[in-house]
């Protein structure tokens, strides 16, 4: 049996944040399965899919345009990460978006190498506990590290106070790992209130 490793600051990781009674069934949910190679072959599919998902949920917010923009940014970031870090780009990756009363949860799932998964998890753990403003400044000043969490996730923390967590589950006998990246954002951030 394989044990998942958890990184970052999501409630499911047992860290500080807690939603208590909010751990209920989602009010709305949308999931996509996509072949990363098709996105590599037409990169605009990332932003187009992100815009579609964002518009789907924006109906539930007062300022639809702002909500659409915020959600599109978050979804686009996770889609790009899932494509970029898929070790076999012919294996489908997934995106699952759930809306709760107080928050949005956006999860991407892809298959990658255990080494890449661990590097990504470590980078997310640093991101969860570091100062996003400082990390953003450092990232701008120095070239990106291969395999680490990108500047996009840092910006989600910095601009929207998003919580980011990663679950790495070894896939038995295949020399691969399943990576779930979850970004959680307060609905007040989505609405700009």
């Amino acid at each position: 049996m394989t044990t998942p490793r958890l990184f970052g600051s999501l409630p499911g990781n047992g860290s500080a944040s807690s939603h208590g009674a909010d751990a209920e069934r989602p009010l709305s949910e949308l999931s996509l399965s996509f072949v990363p190679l098709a996105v590599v072959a037409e990169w605009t599919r990332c932003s187009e899919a992100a815009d579609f998902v964002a518009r789907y949920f924006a109906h539930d917010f007062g300022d639809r345009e702002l909500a659409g923009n915020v959600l599109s940014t978050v979804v686009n970031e996770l889609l790009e990460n899932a494509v970029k870090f898929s070790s076999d780009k012919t294996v489908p990756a997934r995106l699952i978006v759930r809306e709760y009363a107080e928050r949005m949860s956006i999860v991407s799932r892809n298959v990658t190498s255990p080494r890449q998964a661990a590097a990504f998890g470590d980078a997310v753990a640093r991101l969860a506990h570091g100062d996003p403003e400082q990390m953003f400044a450092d990232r701008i000043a120095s070239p990106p590290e291969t395999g680490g969490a990108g500047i996009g996730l840092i910006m989600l923390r910095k601009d929207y106070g998003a919580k980011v967590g990663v679950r790495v589950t070894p896939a038995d006998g295949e020399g691969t790992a399943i990576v779930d990246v979850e970004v959680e954002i307060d609905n007040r951030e989505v609405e700009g209130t």
Partner: protein
Amino acid sequence: MKLQLRSAESRGDIMRCRQLIAEVYNRDYDVVFSEDRYDLEAKVEPWPHRYLMGLCAGELVAACGLYMHDTYVERFGQVTDRDLRCVLESADVASEYDVTCRREFTKMSVRHDWRGRGIAPWLTGAAHSRHFTEVDTDRGVMVFCAKLSIIDNIFHRAGLRTRTIKEFPFYKVHELYRSPSDPMESRMIIPKLDIPGRWYELALPGEYELERLPRP
């Protein structure tokens, strides 16, 4: 080994070519593609307009592309009509070609598990067939850009003669491809002077016994 060559005509064939090229370029160079929103600094490449397929027993093992207009060397390599005319004039054939009709060979890709069998120089030569490029229909010229090692190991190995136009500028999209010791150049191939008859007249579609081409 027999290689079946044909131009990608159907939507499915074009998609197969694009996916093979995308897989190779993404794995080797961290590049992605787009039909109409390319950005070399963001590592997003434009797709070619035409594709040549290399199949073995029905399996697509290699593919390459051709820009029929809006070539890479003019869009990103700062190559002008005047540059092309100069090359033709120095070969004394300026009156025989129309530099506004140019084709660009590009995105030569061999699946990783099919490498080491001499497919790349062979397909590169075959892609210069007039039946694929149709340069004989409008007095067009061939151009391309590549790093010097590829020019020697692929183009020259195929027996193609290449003529330097100018050095290719640096873009982030090429950071994993070129190096200071192996820079990129834009080059021209003058069809009737520089393409051996075996390639220029190669019938397409067709099936050919692939022999290893000797290094130059």
